[in-house]
């Protein structure tokens, strides 16, 4: 069952990932990307990262790609369908990808740590329940449920609070920039 789950969603992810590159219509590319992200989210879930999976959908599929579609439509991009693709770039790109994957294959073959399944590395609820401090997390763990969101939240806000502030500044800068770049002045 888990293996099938993995293979199905990997296939979806990769196939639609390829579609993103292959499709000449940008809308098709964008939608393929959405599906690919959905598959990816499923893979995240299969790795017990519910929160990340949900965020992946919420942010990428729900917001980022809508923005892309919005822009594609706003700019009405169809021009590429009538143009010759750059053969050299395509060959180069594919060659690079093949080299990269080959390299990766070699790397993975060298990576002994990677030869385990999730069953080999089970989540130890009891041990974790003893270590964790927060009561809600403890109770969840005792019940055998992985309080994924709470744990991510705890990590983010207790350990990485400073970095969160930095990201806040980043978003502020981004927002200011977007407003500046797209502001239409009232004459």
């Amino acid at each position: 069952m888990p293996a099938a789950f993995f293979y199905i969603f990997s296939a979806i992810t990769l196939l639609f990932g390829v579609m993103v590159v292959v499709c000449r219509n940008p809308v098709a590319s964008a939608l393929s990307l959405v599906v690919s992200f959905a598959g990816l989210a499923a893979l995240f879930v299969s790795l017990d990262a519910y929160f990340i999976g949900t965020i992946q959908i919420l942010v990428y599929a729900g917001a980022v790609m809508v923005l892309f579609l919005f822009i594609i439509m706003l700019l009405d991009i169809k021009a590429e369908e009538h143009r010759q693709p750059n053969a050299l770039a395509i060959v180069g790109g594919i060659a690079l990808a093949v080299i990269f994957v080959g390299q990766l294959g070699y790397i993975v073959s060298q990576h002994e740590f990677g030869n385990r399944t999730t069953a080999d590395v089970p989540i130890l609820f009891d041990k974790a329940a003893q270590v964790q401090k927060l009561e809600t997390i403890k109770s969840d763990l005792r019940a055998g449920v992985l309080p994924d969101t709470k744990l991510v939240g705890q990590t983010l806000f207790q350990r990485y609070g400073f970095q969160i502030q930095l990201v806040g500044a980043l978003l502020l800068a981004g927002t200011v920039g977007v407003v500046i770049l797209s502001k239409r002045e009232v004459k």
Partner: protein
Amino acid sequence: MVTLNHYLIVSGMLFAIGLTGVIARRSILVIYMCLELMLSAANLTLVAFSRFHLVDGLPDYNAQALVFFTITVAAAEVAVGLAIIVALFRAKHSVDVEAAGKLKG
């Protein structure tokens, strides 16, 4: 059975697909999508590793924190990027990489 390496291979292939797209495609928007694909592939790698690196019996949430930051940053980048692309389009009415070729040398 599905091992960590399976996940790594999948994410690596996704990364490679994105890279190919970045190199081979001409439309800025599609290139940008491929970049998102690459970032997501990196995220998959991180999550896979985090699941297999148990800390106190739980997945390593430090890595997932990085994933969270990556996603956030990527979203901000997209927003800024699309704003620039729209502005460029307004200025030039095209979104091909090669159309953006006034600067050469």
